[in-house]
């Protein structure tokens, strides 16, 4: 029975993952921004859980990084310690708006990268002291290569990926795992404005199952679904002088 804190818990992927953890009997502490949505997600888990399982929550805007230490403390107090921290908050920026406004671009970097790095750093220090624990971060295939259609989001996710590599390297000797999940296209409210035709689109529940398995075995980097690994090998292999002329 792991004690798990989930940041950004009302995102479709995080909520689906929480349901999987809950079914395994884990104790959960959920942090989300919107209190209505958080209440709906938490209530569902509280109905599903077995009697002695803990499902607690706190509502917080994670771009307020000064609150991060207190939130992590509250999660520990509430569950009597922590074994897993899942960092899942994020937003899908309007790329055009980010091009027109530096403020908008930096706000997206803040949400998708800085708040993640802040939480992962705090969790790393805690887990390093206790010499065990698992940090799980939701990245994206978009972080594997910059494309004109969403390079602000991609840059943030790419920063998170490099950060996770370094952190993994640092924590390896402490027995702490750092798992980066790289989902492809997932059918969630975040991607509502896309036309979801075709086999590339996955359901959040499938990503949730992948995350639970990857967490349990302490995986390093996991594409979800797995076929994205192959797609991204190809995308990364295209020379820059070619890719810069493509409509991507």
């Amino acid at each position: 029975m792991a004690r798990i804190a989930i940041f950004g818990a009302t995102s479709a992927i995080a909520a689906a993952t929480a349901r999987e953890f809950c079914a395994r009997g884990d104790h959960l502490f959920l942090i989300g921004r919107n209190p209505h949505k958080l209440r709906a997600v938490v209530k569902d888990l509280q109905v599903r859980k077995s009697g002695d399982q803990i499902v607690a929550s706190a509502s917080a805007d994670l771009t307020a990084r000064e609150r991060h230490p207190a939130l992590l403390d509250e999660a520990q107090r509430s569950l009597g310690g922590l074994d897993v921290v899942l960092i899942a908050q994020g937003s899908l920026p309007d790329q055009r708006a980010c091009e027109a406004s530096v403020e908008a671009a930096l706000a997206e970097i803040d949400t998708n990268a800085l708040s993640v790095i802040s939480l992962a750093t705090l969790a790393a220090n805690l887990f390093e002291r206790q010499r065990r624990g698992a940090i799980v971060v939701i990245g994206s295939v978009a972080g594997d290569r910059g494309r004109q259609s969403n390079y602000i989001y991609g840059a943030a996710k790419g920063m998170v990926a490099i950060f996770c590599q370094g952190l993994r390297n640092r924590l390896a000797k402490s027995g702490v795992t750092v798992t980066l999940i790289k989902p492809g296209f997932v059918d969630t409210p975040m991607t509502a404005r896309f036309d979801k035709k075709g086999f590339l689109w996955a359901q959040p529940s499938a990503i949730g199952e992948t995350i639970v398995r990857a967490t349990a075995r302490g995986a390093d980097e996991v594409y979800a679904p797995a076929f994205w690994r192959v797609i991204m090998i190809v995308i990364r292999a295209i020379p820059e002088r070619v890719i810069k002329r493509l409509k991507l």
Partner: protein
Amino acid sequence: MSAPLSWNRLPRLAPRRVAKLAFRHDPLPPLEGAPSRLAYGEGRSYGDVCLNAGGLIMRTRGLDRLIAFDRATGRVTAEAGVTLDELLTFVVPQGWFLSVSPGTRFVTLGGAVANDVHGKNHHRAGSFGHHVSELEILRSDGQRLVCGPGQNPEWFAATVGGLGLTGLIASVTLDLAPIANACMVTEAKRFRSLDEFWALNAVAERDWPYTAAWIDCLSAQGRGLQLAARHAPAQANLPAKRSRPLAFPIDPPISLVNALSLRAFNALYYRQPLPKGPTLGRYEPYLYPLDALLNWNRIYGRRGFFQYQCVLPPEASRDGIAQLLRSISRRGSGSFLAVLKTFGAAASLGLLSFPRPGATLALDFPNQGASTQSLFVELDAIVADHGGALYPAKDARMPPPMFKRGFPAWEAFSKFIDPEFSSSFWRRVTEQ
């Protein structure tokens, strides 16, 4: 994503826009120029009752959360996009079951309420609406309306069986029935004629909480199997866990259901060796025989198929069912699973509910164009003659007068329709 379809894959009516609902506290998505909106769950109804050509379709599967469950009383509250399958997975291990369940568990709670579905235990338990204690409806003006048998009962009567037109059904509170385990005791009996069916059925209704008959619609005399069941009492030796359903993988270019395959299937099904006396098994094969083959609707091919389900009042049932079966067998066209069942005396709660005392016959037919349509005209005449009605949830083609005669409360009901809600079915049968 491709346009939402109903289960029989026709008519093909594309919406202008599809929106997915994620949280029940969110306001309804904007119309963005669409003339109307309609909720769409799993698309397990037939015809156009779940379609809204040119309008906004709101997919409800994102509303899949449980809200409350009282293990002691079996009262459960859930968001309307939860499927019966998901609910059963949760409640069966805790000793509870749906009080009423239709022939597939892959429907949402919202769909079950909106069509006031019935099951093989109608003669004992009534229809789905009889076990709903509360509904939350989100209207397009932002109002959240809570209704139930004792609270805003006029809204409750409009929404149960209300085809999703009174607003978005956001959550449903249900009273479940206690069970001892996940098994059922079932008994199958062969009948060689309709007369034998009526005799067997009277006994089965008296002795069993669940009963329905499969009928060979190619035989003029109306032979078939009477299938009765009850939830198993507590006992030590229970069968093993359920097996995973298979999926039908392709869309054959033509229907695999034709006169030849149908005759062979029906002859074999009728002659299958029946166990002597009651047997014990999991609940799925009895209650949800077709759920074992996911996408079974694809066996009818790209052209799709029609369901035809009618109800005839008690005094006209014997004569009417016999006439319907004679018509169908003369054509040599019909379904693998033709189902004949009698409804109990319980009056339905919904203004537009389909279940009413009498006998109901459900059949599917491959879409063979004009010849299928002319058969329906013939069947309609028999149903109308006997004072019967057709089931909106399974209809793609009934003429407006047929609807208005079968559901005389339709005008009273229409006062409760949300001004932004509509469906292709409603516009068709009310000639808008």
